[in-house]
């Protein structure tokens, strides 16, 4: 059923009784051409692009919980293409272009809001590093504007320009950056994939990966065995456990990243703003809540809940930067489980098992990557060739020393 304003009006007048299920709940078939393990944003996008770009239809997405139940529904919803290093730059640029057509593509309003991202800097050195990044963005064909202090003041008059511990020198403004409604992204891809015949199977946990003669043959699940010519692992937060089913050891540690939302407030923050001297980023949701986050809790965890010291630290960074948010009250905090790699960049690659593919290691940049990751992973699965924009996201790059370390913090999983 096609969504539109007219449809909403018509259904509304008829008591909203005519809306159809957004996706089917099929029973798993005994065999598929491709089985995707993981019904999160990346897995659903992969299924969608396999169907749309490669004309493949005999695909199942297996989800142990509910669709979109992982990090796609637990993030600060930021969408941007403001990377510095070749390898990341072209990938996120491609992903942002997909975002820009996503609503028309999916016939689903994911509320992609290009309200602009501003990364503040607080020293000459930071300014130079951001200038280098901004120039890389323009080299890539994306947009960037270097704001001085007055430029920031015009756009963000509510920041503390006078008393703050680390004065604001300026900001790198990325007008096409912004936010999107996180759950809607998962639902939009799920609905569109379902409409193209993909079987979305919830409450179906993969318990084993079948391999014969170095080639994948299928998976074992809590709902029975399923044969498959190709199997794709897209299970951020659980990548290590699932990969281990195929004897694969990953360069990943799981870490908690917290996020916070306040009670609803009338519009007061119109952009995405990041603080350069403390890990802090904030935007305001369309419902009015201030959505913000900070750094990792730093210790390995699968507990999906954060600790108090980091929560306090995030609030402290927010208050010193924008003292007007002091009276806002934090309503809810949550923690997502991040696949942290040694260089902070992701992995989209084949594995040592023929027909087994993996997409993981998104650290805490996975949300904005959803379209790009799905597109590039689908390309790899369908063609067995790396998609150009994602060609550097190799599993063996750590061993070889071909790193994509945007932060420059080195090979330690919790430092990115």
């Amino acid at each position: 059923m096609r969504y539109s304003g007219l449809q909403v009006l018509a259904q509304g007048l008829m008591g909203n009784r005519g809306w159809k299920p957004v996706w089917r709940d099929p029973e798993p078939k005994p065999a598929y051409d491709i089985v995707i393990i993981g019904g999160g944003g990346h897995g659903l996008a992969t299924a969608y692009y396999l169907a749309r770009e490669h004309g493949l239809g005999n695909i199942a997405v297996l989800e142990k919980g509910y669709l979109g139940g992982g990090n796609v529904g637990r993030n600060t919803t930021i969408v941007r293409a403001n990377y510095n290093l070749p390898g990341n730059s072209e990938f996120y640029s491609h992903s942002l272009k997909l975002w820009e057509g996503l609503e028309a593509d999916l016939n689903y309003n994911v509320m992609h809001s290009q309200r602009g991202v501003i990364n503040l800097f607080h020293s000459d050195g930071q300014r130079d590093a951001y200038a280098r990044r901004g120039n890389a963005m323009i080299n890539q064909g994306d947009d960037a504007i270097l704001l001085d202090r007055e430029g920031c003041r015009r756009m963000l008059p509510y920041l503390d320009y006078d008393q703050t511990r680390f004065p604001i020198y300026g900001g790198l403004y990325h007008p096409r950056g912004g936010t999107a409604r996180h759950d809607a992204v998962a639902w939009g891809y799920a609905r569109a994939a379902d409409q193209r015949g993909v079987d979305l199977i919830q409450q179906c946990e993969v318990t084993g990966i079948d391999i014969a003669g170095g080639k994948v043959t299928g998976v074992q699940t809590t709902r029975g065995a399923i044969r498959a010519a190709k199997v794709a692992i897209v299970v951020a937060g659980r990548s290590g456990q699932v990969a281990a089913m195929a004897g694969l050891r990953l360069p990943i540690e799981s870490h908690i990243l917290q996020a916070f939302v306040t009670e609803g407030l009338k519009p007061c923050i119109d952009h995405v703003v990041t603080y350069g001297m403390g890990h802090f980023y904030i935007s305001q949701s369309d419902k009015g809540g201030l959505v913000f986050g900070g750094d990792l809790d730093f210790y390995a965890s699968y507990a999906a809940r954060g600790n108090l010291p980091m929560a306090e630290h995030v609030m402290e960074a927010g208050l010193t930067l924008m003292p007007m948010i002091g009276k806002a009250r934090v309503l809810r905090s949550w923690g997502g489980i991040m696949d942290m790699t040694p260089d902070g960049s992701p992995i989209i690659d084949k594995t040592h098992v023929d027909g087994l593919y993996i997409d993981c290691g998104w650290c805490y940049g996975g949300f904005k990557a959803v379209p790009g990751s799905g597109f590039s992973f689908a390309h790899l699965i369908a063609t067995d060739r790396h998609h150009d924009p994602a060609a550097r996201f190799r599993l063996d790059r750590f061993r070889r020393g071909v790193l994509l370390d945007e932060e420059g913090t080195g090979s330690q999983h919790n430092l990115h």
Partner: protein
Amino acid sequence: MRIEGKGLIDRAHPVRFRFDGVSYGGFEGDTVASALLANGVRLMGRSFKYHRPRGVLTAGSEEPNALMEIGTGAARTPNVRATMQEIYEGLEARSQNRVGPLHRDLLSINDLFPGVLGAGFYYKTFMWPRAFWEKLYEPVIRRAAGLGALSGQPDPGRYEKAFAHCDLLVIGAGPTGLMAALTAARAGADVILADENARLGGRLLSETEEIGGKPSALWVADMLDLLRDTGNVRIMTRTTITGAYDGGTYGALERVGQHRPETPDLPLECFWRIHAGQAVLAAGALERPLAFPMNDRPGIMLAGAVRTYLNRYGVAPGRNITLFACNDDAHRTALDLIEAGIRVTAVIDSRADATAQGDYRLLAGAQVIHSKGRRALREITVRHKGRQDTILTDCLAMSGGWNPSVHLTCHMNARPIWNDRIKGFVPAPGAVPGLTAAGACAGIYATHACLTAGVDAAKTALKALGKSAPGVAVPAASDQTGAVQALWYVDGKGRAWLDFANDVTTKDIRLAARENFRSVEHMKRYTTQGMAPDQGKNSNMAALALLADATGRGIAETGTTTYRPPYVPVSISAMAAGAGGKGFAPERFTTSHAATVARGAPMIEAGLWYRPGYFPARGETTWRQSCDREVAMVRDAVGICDVSTLGKIDIQGPDAAAFLDFVYTNMFSTLKPGRVRYGLMLREDGHVMDDGTTARLSDTHFVMTTTTAAAGQVMTHLDFVHQALRPDLDVRFISVTEHWAQFAIAGPRSRDLLNSLLDSPIDGESWPFMACGPVSVHGVAGRLFRISFSGEHAYEIAVPARYGDALFRDLVARAETLGGGPYGMEALNVLRIEKGFITHAEIHGRVTAFDIGMERMISPGKDCIGKTASMRAGLTGPEREQLVGLKPVGAVKQLTSGAHLFEPDADPVRVNDLGYVTSVCFSPTFGTYLGLGFLKNGRARHGDTVKHVDHLRGLETLCEICDPVFFDPEGARVRG
């Protein structure tokens, strides 16, 4: 309407306050909600989406409707629960989320289109044309959404944070918590008893029952005395435990000053971090509303809340009050009202077998199916025995039973367990390690059973604490639990609200189920049920039950969503107390700070330190003028610069040299005592971590310097290397950064200056380049290092920090007599770029020794940290960007840091990118801009021309690639 003689308010202390500009009276002990109700004000807010008129629903922190802005100007606080805000003289309350006056909110037009504005409608529309989302749809949605408004100004209030420690934390001071606290205190445990209300007693404050033969309020007062008598109970009222965290840590928000007029000596709030050996959760239970059609009008409230207003505040919320319930407990409301002389029109009980417990009209087996009244309740429609009757009533007290307050037990991911007897969820055992849930929050509702549960829970905690429990007598009290029937929603014509705060109705839940959002998480996220300020406290149960019915599952099978911290919303000001303004990070000052500031030098942040940018001389109006002069001063005479911020690590022991050999790429065991060497330090992954000079003071004694930025990281690293990897080495080290004040004396007159200062003069023979040793400065034992970060003949002199200020002033004065003076970071940066010295602008974490041309500093004869990994294929070779010098040769004679490098005829796009510029200065020495940068295969390209493109600053020019050492490449001057 105020009832004479009832309530715990202080009638001797009347209080005036204002709501929406109108002045009202109340009494000390009133909340805004109770005082407004006493004044007959029922309309207190507007709903989130449909902007429906709303009144107060509850009497607690879970209030979804009566949210207000309290205070004025910068001190205005949005979304304050009128049910929790105590009134004080002059309090200003204002309704929120409205356009125009509260009774004529223009946005109530939304209420005419409930069909169109149902759950998730926005996912299906507003997609065309694309550009309209940011330009039209989103701004309109944003303006309509949200609740209260921030003032837009910094919060002027004072806030504090504090730590507390105790053996036992008792959460909630109702009957259960009071008994638990007394039992534990009598066992000698150190107890914190926290309750979010202004006074102890919990539910007992709202009831008329007796405990130990006394009215419960008197019993509570006696308990308070007994607790105080023990001497080891800390009673924290107005304190909400907001979160349960790992290791027995609890977050707590104390409303210290919010119930008073401005009191500058008190914080508004204090955020506590309480570490408790054990905890007893005695948080009670929350009543649930009934979802019948049009159940959201002002005047419709919870039955328990009506009792609270009546018994605690002496307020009747209506003159003709009707009850609608599915349980025995709600009948107490009718009895209390009648006792107080209020007219009870009827008790409507959904249970066919319900019996009247007093003299009131009971409609058993009946349901309310509709209500009317534009801005407040006027009448209800009742379905009873197949008939529909209208009852005129101005207040409907409803009760769907009670939900145990399990919230804190969910904070560590445990899911509560369905209990069919009480038709609610109870905490999972062991949900939070060290926490015992007791009383109503564990599904125990009878007062006597709660008192007993409090004692038992304390005993459990005492046992875990290794303390023996005393005998504590449980007083006589009611043992009535009361029966409850599950009644989650009542079907009928019109919308039935579940989540009042987010305007979610039963239709929305059904729509979600119809669209296959069957998972409870999907339903929540699609409808936004449970995501409002009350975190679903009022609506989760009924929404869940409705979803279960709509999808043909049981409640237990459907499962629950998770409660996350905080239990009640916590202000950012409280959790971040102290961090505003300069409080975010410590400030570190050098010993020369005062003298430097006195000279008018602008101070800039360097990590946590402050360092001078430049020292403006008379007549100079721009930083460049000062900088150029300071550079020339160093090149021609002598300059003084405080370099104390560099990390200094004192390293001693028989194996100190071997230790340095292992952490540096180059050899230090071959360094002679009295000499200094430049060292390069790698991370274990083969990239450069830091650099600096290390001086050997004796065979077994070194002083390492680090960069300012990496001082902490290097210290942590050395501790790791020693303790984890090389425990075999007999070496000790400690940071002495703060202990020594250290100043660079740089320039051709540096030795002259020193010899005017030192007690024994030095010469080039005894103090060659890279020499070090002890010196005496006016009788003070100091250290002298002949090192240079400027390319000039230079020294660094160190004295104990207490002499730093005096020495700096002396050095500057002496330099000025030699045509020199102090110099700042700008000049330091120019000097080092001219000499091709790197900083963290170059060693930014992605570069290797190979990249900066120092691969030969990786000593082949030994292992060191990072050596093996640095040999990886990807970290060497011509594809790597290598450090180069850059000189502008195009029409534009300027360079900028952050520009990228391309072949002269190439398009400036990513695929042609050859490198980038890291550091740039205008060199007064050469009269041109100079740059350092990284270029693919750069060392092989000296003499070539590349294009420098800075899109951001609109600067494109050509530059020549050269060696990064521009100034005195032979090093004659440093040795001079």
